[in-house]
């Protein structure tokens, strides 16, 4: 109980330290440059306190409960003993077909962590407010989560096969550019943003643990070189799914209109 309070206090200090420079910039510019009082100062300060305390609780809880478990599971799922293979059977260990459960885990963990991602919730709230309700917060979050899920699974496949990262990312960019051409104008900026947003507090540690677990278990893979890249996948694929979702909706409404 005491140790919990101690580590919670430490986390609170760390979070406050991370937020301090941002607050400094905000207050500095507000007071020195804009020279305007902040409207409803009490409310804003209270909001900031809630953000810092909330983030500290959130991180402490994650480190206490979810991250150790995620770490352990990533290494267990890739261990030869679980796969039913002999540790010396290099050919089978390098075969991507041996890792069915890993893809399953990558997909579900990518999806669920993205749904819970605070930064994505923030952007979805803002988009919903700006679009006057035509962009549902849940619609956006689920679409982005599917993108991350596909990205992380494909990224695991890349680590297992050991292909260079840019063989996937550069065609991915090309696909995004082609989609940009055809997607409805209004969604493009939001789609690009949803790529960067998905990967923060919850997703990064769990996904990184998966990448490191995979690359250290598979013979011939080096965690330092092959362990990276999952986050890049996770931030590229949501762009495609969000634009794809907008394209599908547009196509459906056009078809429905053509019928009547």
């Amino acid at each position: 109980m005491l140790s919990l309070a101690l580590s919670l206090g430490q986390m609170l200090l760390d979070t406050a330290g991370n937020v301090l420079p941002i607050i400094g910039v905000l207050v500095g510019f507000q007071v020195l440059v804009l020279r305007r009082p902040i409207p409803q100062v009490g409310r804003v300060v209270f909001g900031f306190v809630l953000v810092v305390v909330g983030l500290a609780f959130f991180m402490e809880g994650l480190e206490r409960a979810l991250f150790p478990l995620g770490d352990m599971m990533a290494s267990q799922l890739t261990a030869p003993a679980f796969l039913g293979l002999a540790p010396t059977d290099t050919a089978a260990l390098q075969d991507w077909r041996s890792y069915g459960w890993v893809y399953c885990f990558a997909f579900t963990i990518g999806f669920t962590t993205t749904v819970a991602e605070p930064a994505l919730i923030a952007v979805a709230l803002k988009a919903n407010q700006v679009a006057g309700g035509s962009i549902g917060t849940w619609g956006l979050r689920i679409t982005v989560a599917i993108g991350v899920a596909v990205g992380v699974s494909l990224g695991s496949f890349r680590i297992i096969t050991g292909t260079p990262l840019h063989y996937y990312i550069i065609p991915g960019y090309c696909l995004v550019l082609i989609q940009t051409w055809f997607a409805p104008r209004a969604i493009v900026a939001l789609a690009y943003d949803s790529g960067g947003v998905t990967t923060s507090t919850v997703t990064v540690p769990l996904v990184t643990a998966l990448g490191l677990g995979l690359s250290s278990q598979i013979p011939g893979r080096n965690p330092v070189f092959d362990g990276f890249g999952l986050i890049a996948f996770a931030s590229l694929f949501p762009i495609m799914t969000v634009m794809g979702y907008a394209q599908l909706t547009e196509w459906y409404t056009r078809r429905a209109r053509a019928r009547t």
Partner: protein
Amino acid sequence: MKGLLVQFLRSLAESLRDLAPILGVIGLFQVVVLGQPLPDPGDLLWGTALVVLGLSLFVQGLKLGLFPLGETMAWDFARKGSLMWLFLFVFALGFSATMAEPALMAVAQKAAAVAAAGNLIEPSPATQADYARGLRYTIALSVGCALVIGVLRILRGWPVQYLIIGAYIGVVGMTALAPPEIIGIAYDSGGVTTSTITVPLVAALGVGLASSIEGRNALTDGFGLIAFAALTPIIFVLGYGMLR
């Protein structure tokens, strides 16, 4: 006061709903697939309670503090009409937020280890710390620049895809030239720079700016800042890898 409490309880329920899938997946895999009991269920319960509580406080705080502040500042800057100060503000915001980002510190340290393993730098702790610090400055600089260019785009009303296409071409061109060891880290560094506090603030700022300027659409022009802040670090880190 009572309204606030009801609101808080509702957001508590929402957080629980948001987090339940993660717990479900981890529990299912642990028990059904791996066939092992949950280790230390007490700690797990405590941690989950903290996560749920933290997430609801965070979302409440966003609505009360970060969102309104970001928007009023955007309005005030637009009214003040001084571009210089606006650019300086977003640069300072991007730079300081990125320097303080814990995820970035972790990635920079790993990157230094990779560079040492790839014989790009001397494998001594001092050079590695130096390399990691240089990398963090590079990324923070790139995020600051990205926000400045992104704000300029909102002011001018350029379509977002032109900038993104330009950045993609930059990334692809640099990938061909950069040492292969740095590529994985460079691509990942784009994703980690955009943190949980910067994102809501930058989103509120962009949307506030776009809606305060005549003829700009909050949806098409207001978003896109984060995308840019996630792409430029890739180019800068690839460049850093080439120079070192």
